[in-house]
């Protein structure tokens, strides 16, 4: 009986964790790094942001629109949240639904950022928002806030 209880307990734990873990968390940059170096025929748009970052929130509609206009054109958008602290999953989940985000969101939570900022781009001071656009042959990094047209123009240089 005890064993059975334990079994139920573990099933329950697994169920709740898999349910609440909506967004993948990378707490070690080295495990995240492959997402910046995928060698297929797609174009990747990687945006570093956070729910509390005002300029990041302001440019989110531009990334939504980019998703709408380019989702069938081998363009993948990845929103890398730098959020940290309590209720991380819930905060991002409600942000996602409030801002109607369809792009994939993951969480990068490796606090030793001095060790990895240069691996994203040596041009990055560390301020967010920041955006990396890359294909297997080209790479551009932007430490700035985007309006839709500007973002689209930068992406089109890769098409």
């Amino acid at each position, binding site marked *: 009986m005890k064993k059975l209880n334990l079994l139920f307990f573990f099933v329950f734990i697994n169920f709740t964790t898999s349910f609440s873990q909506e967004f993948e968390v990378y707490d070690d940059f080295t495990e995240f790094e492959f997402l910046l170096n995928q060698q297929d025929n797609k174009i990747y748009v990687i945006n570093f942001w956070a729910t509390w*970052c*005002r300029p990041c929130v302001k440019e989110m509609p531009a990334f939504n629109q980019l998703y709408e206009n380019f989702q069938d054109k081998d363009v993948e958008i990845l929103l890398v949240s730098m959020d*940290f602290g309590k209720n991380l999953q819930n905060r991002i989940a409600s942000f996602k639904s409030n801002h109607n985000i369809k792009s994939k969101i993951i969480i990068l939570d490796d606090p030793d*950022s*001095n060790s990895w*900022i240069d691996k994203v781009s040596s041009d990055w001071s*560390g*301020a967010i928002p920041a955006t990396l656009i890359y294909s297997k042959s080209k790479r551009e990094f932007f430490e700035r806030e985007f309006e839709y047209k500007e973002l689209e123009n930068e992406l089109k240089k890769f098409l």
Partner: protein
Amino acid sequence: MKKIVMTGLLILVAFFGLNAQGYEVGDEAANFKLKNVNGEMVSLFDYKDATKGAIVIFTCNHCPYAIAYEDRIIELDKFFSAKGYPVIAINPNDPELAPEDSYEKMITRAKEKGFTFPYLFDETQEVYKMYGAKRTPHVYLLSRVDKDFVVSYIGTIDDNYKDASAVKKQYLRDAVLALLDGNKPNPNFTKAIGCTIKDKEYKK
């Protein structure tokens, strides 16, 4: 001839381009005179506690990284002020873009936290540009050489904004200790994720 002129122009452009990005380690820091939360003006060159140097930190009220470091900045000031390296904090943000960073709210925050150091308002946003600060918090450690203040370390406070107890590398503390021992900080430049400085001219 044309080529030489063009090359000369390119070098000039590169030179001024680099200068526009602010200080690098080894540069002499210019003076600033800004309003403190107590209403008084504070000038770097006349700051009495800065007998050996100063820890200039661009920081603000609203940014979660800045908030995460508040207690550590107070500790650093308590520890290094008496040793000749006081903290001077500067808020570089435009309150129209970040209302939590207004002068009035700076006064409130400094009282709430019991800041032991000046918390200055860079109202015209000239000082942060002169230094080349890119984010909050952003540290410029200055050491005194005769009357000049020389930039000796630029970067972050330590390697874990989230959890002070999990810090492994205390970059800033180690840099000041190195200077106190007569050595050069190593590393003298680090990066960290931070909030952009809120400026209407920012990348527009």
